[in-house]
């Protein structure tokens, strides 16, 4: 289904950094010299979780003539924002800067990325918003970067990859969650692995197909960690958005963690509430990929099993290839749910978007092209 009549909010767009050279103007002087001396500027720190030219990661008709897909603002505007008439689009940078072993280099590059995205993207299209890229190896430095970026209201969430060094619920990460909760920023957890551990306890796969499919189970492990370690007990107002996680695996996942909780919750006595209850309050999922079943009746059952009309947030996952044409909304969604997914749920999840929306309705701001802009 084409979402454009609703002027949706697109919660997952991927801008690409052409090469690290593009970041040089946005780095502190020491790091600019450091990176050029080591010759690092020619690469773009592409993640092995997202090889840019794999068919899955670039829809054929969205492939640019040169450079990685997502590197050209004009194309992103034309392919995604204009086609789907999105009122807002949230940019999520997937880049190796997030997972470098050197905390210092990682922090310097993440800061450069955040400055770059503000200057080269957010300043050029008022529909765009961005997630804050953080050096996850150092929760302290990550929290500092969150605080610095948050002054710019166009940064609407913090971005983490789902599988890094330690499961994301571990207490070492709590400075990140403390800062995010304080500033009212959701934590966006995006598919992707630092490949510090095999995708499962059974070892390393051969094919990219397998790695990608297993990402859904990676999210299960990550979410179990957040729940079990007590992140939502300590930070009850924190919202977590699972991005590019797939959707249809979720009901069976909730049944499993509920059942485990019933059996062994004495191990983690701070978990006083049923996991599914906490999840429905604090966790959201983006809609692409949806991993649709074969029939519309099955879609209906899965949505009933998810059991909340507040959990799903619209995304295109541009420029990744999960649908063709303008069919960005999975078939079979009940009409009353569609507007919630496309507009209401993102506004509820991202307070900074809601503030923009409010300002716009109060002051009737419109852009030069007559489109409603924040």
């Amino acid at each position, binding site marked *: 289904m084409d979402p454009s009549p609703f002027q949706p909010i697109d919660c997952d767009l991927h801008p690409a950094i052409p090469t690290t050279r593009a970041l040089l103007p946005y780095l502190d002087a020491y790091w600019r010299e450091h990176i050029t001396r080591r010759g690092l500027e020619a690469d773009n720190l592409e993640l092995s979780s997202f090889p840019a030219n794999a068919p899955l990661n670039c829809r054929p008709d969205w492939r640019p003539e040169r450079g990685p897909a997502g590197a050209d603002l004009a194309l992103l505007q034309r392919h995604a924002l204009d086609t789907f008439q999105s009122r807002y689009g949230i940019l999520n940078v997937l880049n190796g800067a997030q997972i470098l072993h050197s905390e210092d280099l990682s922090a310097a590059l993440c800061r450069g990325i955040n400055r770059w995205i503000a200057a080269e993207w957010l300043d050029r299209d008022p529909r765009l918003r961005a997630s804050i890229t953080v050096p996850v190896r150092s929760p302290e430095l990550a929290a500092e970067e969150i605080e610095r970026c948050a002054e710019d209201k166009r940064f609407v969430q913090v971005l983490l990859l789902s599988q890094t060094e330690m499961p994301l619920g571990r207490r070492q990460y709590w400075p990140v969650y403390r800062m995010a909760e304080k500033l009212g920023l959701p934590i966006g957890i995006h598919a992707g692995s630092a490949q510090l551990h095999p995708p499962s*306890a*059974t070892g390393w*796969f051969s094919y990219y197909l397998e790695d990608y499919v297993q990402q859904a189970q990676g999210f299960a492990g990550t979410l179990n960690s957040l729940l079990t370690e007590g992140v939502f007990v300590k930070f009850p107002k924190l919202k977590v958005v699972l991005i590019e996680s797939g959707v249809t695996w979720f009901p069976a996942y909730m049944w499993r963690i509920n059942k485990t909780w019933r059996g062994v919750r004495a191990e983690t006595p701070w978990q006083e509430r049923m996991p599914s209850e906490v999840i429905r309050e604090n966790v959201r999922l983006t809609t692409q990929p949806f991993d649709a079943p074969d029939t519309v009746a099955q879609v209906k059952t899965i949505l009933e099993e998810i059991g909340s009309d507040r959990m799903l947030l619209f995304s295109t996952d541009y420029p990744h290839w999960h649908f063709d044409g303008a069919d960005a909304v999975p078939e079979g969604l009940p009409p009353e749910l569609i507007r919630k997914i496309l507009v209401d749920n993102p506004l509820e999840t991202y307070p900074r978007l809601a503030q923009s929306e409010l300002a716009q309705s109060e002051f009737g701001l419109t852009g030069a092209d007559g489109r409603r802009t924040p």
Partner: protein
Amino acid sequence: MNVTLLNPQIETSQQSHLGFIDCDVHPYFKSPAEFDEFLPRKWRAHRASIGGRTRQGLAKASNYPRMSPGTGQRMDAWPPDGSHPGSDLPFMQLQLLDKFNVAYGLLAPLVGGAAAERNIDFGAAMATAVNDWQLARFCDPDPRLKGAVQINIEHEKAAIAEIEARAGDRRFAQVNIPPRSIEPLGRRRYWPILEACAANNLPVSLHLGGTAGHASTGGGVVSFYHEEHPSYVQSMAALVTSLVCEGVFEHLPNLKVVLVEGGFAWLPALCWRLDNTWKALKAEVPFLRQKPSEYVRQHIWVTTQPIEEPERPADMLSTLEWIGIDRVMFSTDYPHWDQDDPRFAFKVPLPEDWKRKIYHDNAMAVYGFE
């Protein structure tokens, strides 16, 4: 946790499960010295001195302590003499086999450490010993119990020899491969062992548990058993993905794989995700000649425990339908803490013909029981 009353009387209104086939029963030893009579002298000495060497920091205990003694046993399954649950055949008969008139019980012996042993010659010797021990202690005294051939998967030559040696022996029903191996089971290094299973018409059972030294999740080492236990599902999904995407079932069209102790409700969504992702990435796996989900439907069976409990109980029915009623087989996991009771596992009434298949007919067909 299920609690079974020792009164062997059964409610007459719920007897349709009687005579079922239990696809996951755990035998245990009263003392590890029980294996010695089946070990060559050299390995007896080794077992007593250096002992097992696995890929974890604790020599004997689990890094994820269970919530009940004996590495997570049912509290009422300790035999009257105080020996380990599962180690006393008459007590197992009383609590499980006779109580429910079990037609066949498929043994999953998680003992001896053969599967994960780093000294592969010792591992192979322990596998042989545990195989002989199963027969002597359980299968011969009670022919309802069917053995599972243990192997050390890193010792290819010995593993194949063991499979071939046991192949004609109908006291064994399947080959038990440790699913948390060093590499995913579909990788080509393991194909000769899978070929031996297929050639001898022995289903492969993948029983979750243990470790090959990798973190339980792709995101790293988890803190709690509360996370370790559901990570079995994540490992099981990885195994299905590996077996399908590596082309194992193209190579071995008669290979049967039984998933044990990973639940099952996750399987339909995994199939949808496999199919949808494969559409974009077909070129990477050109040897797959059909949709990934079709291989699953042809080659993979699931056992029920630890059974999922949907929030709306009737969702169990659609889940079973999506997997295929002919692919699901009942298991209790006796005597573990989270075992399922055949009377109460399904929280929603199943149609009679589904029950017959799930509790009985499917396993009869998979294992060729008569």
